[in-house]
């Protein structure tokens, strides 16, 4: 019989393809983290710019710190608890042990989301019970006052991490115990040890490899975890993974690439360490079998070094504990929730330095997500920065606190144009943060006319070239405006007509896709000709693709205002007002405007910005750009602010959007 000829080249190509498939995304991510440009698709040269930015990004550094702290603490606690649990399992009879091991394995197999949600639920239920209990205790005595309101935070996240780490430690330590000669403990006791001495001097050194690899696994899992943290961290705490997720929701900054690269490298290094340890242990076992070499006792220096390293590690842990302990002291604080990439973080530092108030700055991805967080009760924000229509809804539902404008003198600097808007007609609840317009972005090299109408978003001649925005309110607004209706209409016939326009265009193949964040890549990379999006984001895109143009169509558009408000449940109202006042100041507004490219509602800042820009960059601010950033009266006249729609209209939006089947 002839043996089948092996197709080695084919094998290799297949192998190559498999690995390419596995690793291409990560390589691209790593490469683009060194891109000097802002785009995620256009290579502009090598630079460490984004890593540098990263180090100065307060939000990221805080979350790195949080991640490390929670991972380290959870690892230590889970390793101790898991080791003792494994010893408990070990001393059981085999049947019970096997049953318990099966139970132990379930959390590892279990979907993270189930673990996360169930832990979250457990904490909330416990907090409610605790609230009632503490209230009762406080009412019957006055010696100690128990806090009645507990909320999700670092503590609950730590508990969750410990909880999902323990099974990994047990799994790593268990086999080491089973491999251990049962007589070792007897032998140690026989030689004069008490049980505890035997445990420390014999059992621990024997199972140490298992403990170490269990701890490493636990640490990796902790660093890596997103889902469980997301559900248990509450509003004030955020791990690196959560911060990255938050960043992707607003504007894709290449910082994400840099931070993801670092995360990938960290986990990779940990995995390599685990693997090397395992294989070297294997080798040692084999060597032992062959009885070849005499293994040298580790030299004195190595031993000293080891001790020093262990000492340093312990010290570092202690210092972090003390530092966090102090940070947790009753320093005044304020919890702020805003959008990702929506503040110049210098401002936070400056505010803390000036006032001594600690700021816990969080981000959330959308108005709707913010709403559900507040409603669920897991969050304990003081200041939030929702958009107009959401503010109206929150006021309607009595969730916002009236502000004491005496504490916010800078409110005077807000242009009257942005006061008393329809979402807050008497202006009792809000201080505007930033505003902007929605419009059409198009690539002048791909379109041979000057676009000035919403028609372009529905024109079959641009079939396959148009990116429609992927949210019902904005998308239908474009159609409503094109048809000459108000974006706040509650007339069902008008809305159905608008929907028909959208559907016809979709069926005619006008849309390349319905997108949010992908719009940056597609437009910057000239992969699509026309898109509708926000003015501030257009300006970011322009940095990477000079051929792009922006227009607020002649039929009009939406202009939106995001404003700061204080929740009724806020526990730091005074600090919240101090923060609002600080952000409303001219300096803060200038810094923010420069950072986020959205217009300021502070008239001084709006006026001074071109000069500020010139001084900062030593070049003149392009007037056209400024006009897009902060459009004048003539443009705003055409635009409307979104109002909070009645429930049945919202339902109709929802139904129509579902029918469209995006």
């Amino acid at each position, binding site marked *: 019989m002839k043996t089948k000829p092996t197709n080695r080249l084919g094998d290799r190509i297949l192998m190559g393809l498999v690995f390419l498939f596995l690793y291409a995304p990560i390589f691209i991510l790593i490469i683009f983290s060194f891109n000097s440009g802002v785009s995620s698709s256009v290579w502009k040269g090598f630079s460490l710019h984004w890593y540098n930015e990263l180090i100065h990004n307060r939000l990221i550094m805080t979350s790195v710190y949080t991640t490390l702290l929670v991972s380290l603490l959870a690892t230590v606690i889970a390793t101790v608890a898991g080791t003792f649990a494994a010893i408990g399992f070990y001393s059981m009879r085999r049947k019970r042990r096997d049953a318990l091991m099966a139970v132990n394995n379930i959390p590892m197999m279990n979907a993270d989301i189930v673990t996360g949600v169930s832990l979250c639920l457990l904490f909330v239920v416990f907090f409610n019970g605790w609230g009632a209990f503490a209230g009762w205790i406080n009412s019957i005595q006055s010696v100690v006052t128990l806090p009645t309101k507990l909320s999700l935070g670092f503590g609950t996240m730590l508990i969750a991490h410990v909880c999902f780490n323990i099974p990994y430690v047990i799994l790593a330590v268990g086999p080491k115990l089973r491999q251990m000669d049962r007589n070792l403990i007897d032998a140690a006791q026989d*030689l004069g040890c008490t049980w505890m001495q035997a445990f420390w001097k014999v059992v621990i*050194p024997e199972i140490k490899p298992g403990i170490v690899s269990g701890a490493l696994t636990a640490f990796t899992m902790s660093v890596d975890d997103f889902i469980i943290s997301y559900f248990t961290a509450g509003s004030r705490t955020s791990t690196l993974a959560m911060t990255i997720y938050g960043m992707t929701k607003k504007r894709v900054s290449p910082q994400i690439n840099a931070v993801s690269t670092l995360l990938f490298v960290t986990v990779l290094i940990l995995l390599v360490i685990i693997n090397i340890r395992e294989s070297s242990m294997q080798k040692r076992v084999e060597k032992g079998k062959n009885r070849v070499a005499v*293994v040298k006792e580790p030299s004195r220096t190595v031993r000293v070094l080891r001790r020093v390293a262990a000492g340093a590690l312990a010290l570092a842990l202690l210092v972090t504990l003390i530092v966090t302990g102090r940070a947790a002291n009753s320093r005044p604080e304020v919890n702020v929730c805003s959008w990702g990439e929506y503040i110049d973080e210098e401002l936070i530092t400056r505010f803390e330095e000036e006032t001594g108030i600690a700021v816990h700055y969080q981000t959330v991805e959308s108005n709707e997500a913010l709403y559900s967080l507040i409603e669920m009760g897991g969050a304990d924000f003081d200041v939030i920065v929702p958009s107009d229509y959401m503010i109206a809804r929150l006021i309607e539902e009595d969730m916002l606190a009236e502000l004491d404008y005496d504490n916010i003198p800078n409110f005077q600097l807000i242009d009257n144009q942005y006061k008393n808007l329809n979402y807050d007609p008497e202006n009792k609840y809000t201080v505007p943060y930033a505003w902007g317009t929605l419009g059409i972005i198009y690539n002048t090299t791909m379109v041979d006319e000057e676009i000035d109408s919403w028609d372009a978003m529905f024109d079959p001649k641009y079939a396959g070239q148009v990116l429609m925005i992927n949210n019902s309110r904005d998308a239908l607004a474009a159609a409503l405006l094109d048809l000459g209706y108000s974006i706040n209409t509650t007339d069902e016939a008008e809305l159905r007509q608008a929907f028909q326009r959208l559907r016809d265009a979709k069926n005619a193949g006008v849309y390349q896709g319905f997108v949010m964040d992908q719009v940056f890549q597609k437009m910057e990379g000239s992969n699509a000709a026309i898109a509708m999006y926000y003015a501030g984001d257009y300006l970011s895109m322009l940095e990477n693709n000079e051929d792009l143009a922006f227009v607020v169509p002649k039929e009009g558009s939406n202009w939106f205002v995001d404003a700061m408000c204080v929740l009724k449940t806020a526990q730091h109202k005074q600090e919240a007002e101090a923060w609002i006042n600080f952000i409303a100041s001219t300096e803060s507004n200038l810094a923010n405007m420069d950072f986020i490219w959205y217009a300021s509602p502070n008239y001084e800042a709006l006026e001074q910005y071109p000069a500020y820009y010139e001084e900062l960059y030593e070049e003149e601010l392009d007037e056209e750009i400024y006009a897009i950033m902060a459009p004048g009266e003539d443009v705003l006249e055409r635009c409307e602010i979104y109002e909070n729609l009645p429930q049945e209209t919202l339902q109709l939006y929802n139904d129509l959007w579902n029918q469209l089947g995006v």
Partner: protein
Amino acid sequence: MSKELIRLHDLCMAFDDELVLDHINLYINDSEFLTLLGPSGCGKTTTLRIIGGFTTPTSGDVTFDGVRINDVPPHKRQINTVFQKYALFPHLDVYENVAFGLRIAKVPAQEIEERVMEMLEVVSLKGFERRRVDQLSGGQQQRVAIARALVNRPKVLLLDEPLGALDLRLRKDMQIELKRIQQQMGITFIYVTHDQEEALTMSDTVVVMDKGRIQQIGSPEDIYNEPKNAFVADFIGESNILNGTMVRDGVVRMYRKEFPCVDGGFAPNEPVDVVIRPEDIDIVPVEQGQLVGTVTNVTFKGMQYDIIVDLGGFKWLIQTTDHSPVGSQVGVKIDPDGFHIMKKSEYSGLFGDYSSYSEEYEELADASALEEEESGDEE
């Protein structure tokens, strides 16, 4: 002579409902080499663990030098143990393994050094101080375990089947070595084994155990030559055990024939077990034989042949240097001192017939004994 050091008084031990030790009474003298011998599950290891302090007896007392030590934890007893699979500490090298007990006892470093080196000398392991224990051969590990125990200068050394994991050759060497060390150190050894040859070679006193009870205590010669019952006779060496009747002192009847023997002290015509060691039987020409049988199996064992002879339906094992072909008729002759007469016991009729004998017989028996041990270890 030597004085009594340890006494076990009416010792009982039950795991769950199972009685593992059934009223054990035993005393052990100073400087004695005493062996607990028996098949696995006979309670010998449990007895050892009670002496070591790892197990507390259900009832009965253990005294050491006249003091009751039932509740004294192992680390406070002047007793050290060599465990079955040595239980060396894998994370420590040879030196540190041996020094372990001294370090726990906070002996000064200088003295530790001296005592460890001295002990390594005794067990012929000088120059191996810095070896990792998993790089040693089985015999070397064994000696480390002994050194580790002896360096603490215990009054008693317990050894739990210490040679079980070694190959035959090494086992023989170590037997001699152990005996030498015991004599050199002059301390009490309590040795547990299921290997009768080991027991006979080394011991001053052998305690044969089965089913949690002591079957016989005596010197190796006593045990071999005057087994008390069929179990002991069978367990110690090979034995043909037959039903007989003691006609009167010095005369035993079996196969409807009377044979002269040297035993006495039985009631007239008392039914007895007759033990005949395979090496005490001579094969002679048919006409000279006291009995006549047919050879059914011959195995060459090096020093001798194991010959199975069918004598009236009962198969005898005979060890002889002369070869007889299978199928041939042979005569069998036994000298009077070749008969060992025992009273009937619960073991009568269970042992001593070689009907099921085959070449694999011993191997099979060994394998099943091993398995039992392992399953016993699990719990």
